[in-house]
């Protein structure tokens, strides 16, 4: 392979095309185009709409939980049984079926081929199957609401023996459907995930070196590699638990007595399940966070009209966080009864992750420094992300530092921490990203006023929910209680605070309806967007059509000459230079990727 010199410095070097550009098969019928579609963009929309739909179910469940917690006894239809089912389904849906599916299946499918300049995913048929299996997984999960005994109430971590013994709601049918649904989800995800990885590695446009890729692609790519390594642990844990439940094996079941009856199991280890679960569960946090990190970097850079600060460090921080996240899982298990010496190792690795994570935060705020900050709705959500992520990330230092975790584990402090860092912060990015890329997907702009209303209510409301919740945990208020009842150490004022949190949760929930309304309304009535309304540099904004057609690029694939962040380059005629613009001969172009 030879480099074709395309400019006066390394920024301009573009490798020759190694393979001819082939024509795609173009579907003609409505069904092959929009239902059983092999176009990554359509699959992305299918994934996103399904994830948002099941996410709405999880949102309603959170309302019901908060009604019970804030006003215990007032809503007699919510009993202990239902409460446990609500927390379990809410947690699992939000983490796996909404966030993972939306970031990787939704944004991954839409953005990867467009941002790396590919025609589509490399295995379009497997890509299509991945969505349909995901849909099946969602349907199986939703079906558990309608089976005898209802969905499982084992808590989202599904810890055995409790998950499969009497005394737990949904122990008969619900848990089986949950495990089957997870197994399906992982099968479907693997098909999609292999596509994202291979597409990034094999189908990039000429000149799109790894170090020129937008951070969004880096985030999704690294998260997908992690997911392909972490989900198998959940897969085997689910299969083994299913065997324990249905076939009477004893992978996780020691000799025990359930409701006065001696069970036939013996010799299994409940802790083994926790190790498998968290070997998946902790990387899962970053599987959600890394795409969010990537996207927010692109949002901040674009709307501050400034190159992302410290791109190379950002890339290495993403990769470093991804790698480190595989050696920290047991910080979820400090009080699980595992060998106490593990605490030293896992506390150290956990706190080391704070360093690359902090670097990312510094680089975001340093990108704002001396920028030209446009407070658009995507930018507002990006700023909201930084605030909530920093807040939630710092409280993670409490829980990662083993001995400080001891009094706080299993309290509302943990609930507050992970909702701030893994719920609110990535959701801020989800919204920011939808507001940012909606014009490319639909050709229309969102209504700005409604968008700002949505942002402020969501950001301030969510902050008002989860910031004070930490203090309920400090008091010692335990989590997973449907009714705190009278406890000598909980003052009445804490119950008032709990009620306030519930009211805020209702308000924030309703603000999401404004967003949904805006999304539907703007589809028809939104302002025409044009092809590049944010004047962004990355390839997806340079497509010949908006929304992009099948195959993305018309006759010719783009050629990439520069990194993704050439904003406000000194001497350039405009404050952005798209990645496919050949070198302009400016001094600033020479030294950057």
């Amino acid at each position: 392979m030879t480099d074709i010199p395309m400019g006066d410095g390394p920024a301009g070097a573009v490798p020759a095309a190694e393979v001819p550009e082939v024509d795609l098969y173009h579907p003609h019928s409505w069904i092959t185009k929009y239902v059983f579609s092999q176009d990554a963009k359509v699959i992305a929309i299918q994934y996103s709409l399904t994830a948002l739909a099941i996410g709405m179910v999880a949102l309603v469940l959170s309302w019901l939980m908060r009604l019970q917690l804030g006003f215990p006894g007032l809503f007699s239809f919510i009993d202990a049984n239902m409460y446990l089912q609500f927390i379990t389904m809410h947690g699992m849906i939000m983490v796996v079926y909404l966030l993972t599916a939306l970031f990787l299946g939704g944004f991954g499918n839409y953005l990867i081929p467009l941002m790396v300049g590919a025609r589509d995913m490399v295995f379009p048929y497997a890509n299509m199957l991945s969505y349909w299996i995901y849909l099946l997984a969602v349907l199986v999960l939703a079906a558990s609401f309608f089976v005898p005994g209802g969905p499982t109430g084992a808590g989202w971590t599904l810890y055995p023996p409790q998950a499969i013994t009497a005394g737990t709601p949904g122990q008969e049918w619900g848990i089986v459907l949950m495990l089957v649904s997870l197994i399906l989800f992982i099968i479907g995800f693997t098909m999609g995930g292999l596509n994202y990885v291979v597409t990034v590695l094999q189908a990039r446009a000429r000149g799109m070196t790894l170090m020129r890729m937008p951070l969004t692609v880096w985030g999704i790519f690294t998260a997908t590699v992690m997911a392909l390594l972490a989900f198998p642990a959940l897969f085997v844990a689910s299969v083994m638990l299913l065997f324990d439940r249905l076939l009477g094996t004893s992978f996780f079941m020691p000799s025990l007595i359930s409701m006065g009856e001696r069970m036939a199991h013996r010799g299994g280890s409940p802790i083994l399940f926790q190790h498998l679960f968290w070997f998946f569960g902790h990387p899962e946090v970053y599987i959600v966070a890394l795409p969010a990190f990537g996207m927010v970097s692109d949002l901040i850079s674009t709307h501050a009209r400034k190159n992302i600060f410290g791109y190379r460090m950002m890339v290495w921080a993403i990769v470093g966080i991804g790698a480190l996240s595989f050696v920290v899982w047991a910080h979820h298990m400090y009080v699980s009864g595992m060998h106490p010496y593990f605490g030293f190792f896992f506390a150290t690795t956990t706190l080391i992750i704070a360093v690359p994570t902090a670097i990312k935060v510094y680089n975001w705020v340093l990108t704002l420094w001396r920028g030209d900050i446009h407070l658009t709705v995507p930018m507002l959500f990006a700023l909201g992300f930084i605030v909530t992520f920093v807040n939630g990330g710092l409280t993670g230092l409490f829980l990662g530092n083993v001995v400080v975790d001891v009094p706080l584990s299993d309290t509302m402090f943990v609930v507050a921490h992970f909702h701030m860092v893994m719920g609110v912060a990535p959701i801020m990015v989800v919204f920011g990203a939808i507001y940012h890329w909606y014009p490319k997907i639909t050709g229309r702009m969102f209504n700005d006023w409604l968008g700002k209303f949505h942002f402020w209510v969501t950001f301030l409301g969510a902050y008002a929910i989860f910031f004070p919740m930490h203090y309920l945990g400090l008091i010692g208020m335990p989590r997973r209680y449907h009714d705190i009842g009278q406890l000598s150490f909980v003052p009445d004022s804490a119950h008032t605070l709990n009620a306030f949190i519930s009211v805020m949760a209702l308000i924030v929930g309703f603000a999401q309806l404004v967003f949904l309304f805006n999304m539907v309304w703007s589809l028809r009535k939104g302002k025409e967007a044009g092809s590049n309304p944010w004047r962004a540099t990355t390839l997806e904004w340079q497509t010949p059509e908006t929304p992009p057609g099948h195959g993305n690029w018309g006759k010719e694939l783009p050629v990439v000459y520069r990194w993704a962040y050439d904003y406000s380059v000194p001497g350039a005629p405009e404050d952005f230079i798209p990645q496919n613009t050949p070198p302009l001969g400016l001094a600033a172009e020479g030294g950057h990727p």
Partner: protein
Amino acid sequence: MPTAIILLLVAVGSVLFHIVSPWWWTPIASNWSYIDHTLTATFWITGAVFFAVVAFMAYCIFRFRHVEGRKADYEPENRKLESWLTVATAIGVTAMLVPGLFVWHQFITVPAGAAQVEVMGQQWRWSYRLPGADGRLGTSDVQYISAENPLGLNPNDPNGKDDVIIDGGDLHFQIGRPIKVLLRSVDVLHNFYVPEFRAKMDMVPGSVTYFWFTPIRAGEFDVLCAELCGLAHSQMRGKVIVESAQAYNAWLAQQKTFAEMSARSRTAAAERQPDQERARPGR
């Protein structure tokens, strides 16, 4: 401008909330004030970082907001600044981690001479066992559990005969005496949690876990289960009482040993036997 002000208010408001909020942990009743100190130090370090980052953002939004004709700087990298920030972060993290690890070492090292108590969890009640005069707990297993032997003590183990069984009552602790709490469950995961003691640990069926502490304040404290254990998880309550040695010994003297309980249940069974024989004359 309003955005910058609101973000600044969020930062200032969070700090003020922390300072004036009436919601703070319960007054400690054990020796683990080290944990409280580590937590307080973590609050100061992380609080300062949070305030600095958000306030800096607010300043940038105010100072570099878009106005006609503004152009952003072009500065892809600044190795020196990035290295400096990395080192400062590493120092901050170390300042939290190192004391934490020292305290953890203390947390998992039970002092010689600590008294023992076994806590057994089952859906959804607490039972306790204390070693008797021999100072040793007898072995136990799920297979021995019966109505007469609710804790599943091995009837053939002589060490268990004098074990004191408290099945369903309150647990008492002697003030100032280190206690190693052994934790056992017969069904699902539980977690013996007294917020005032700070220390806690899960109870795992099939194994025995532990933590230790020294009660330092007399009083009556709520016991909660902190690990999701099924439907009545939130109702799994109990009480522990920390008291003087004198009061503790008086309480201990009233408790029954395993041998006494077994003898009593044997007598009760023997008394029941003739009645049952009469009721079933055919046998």
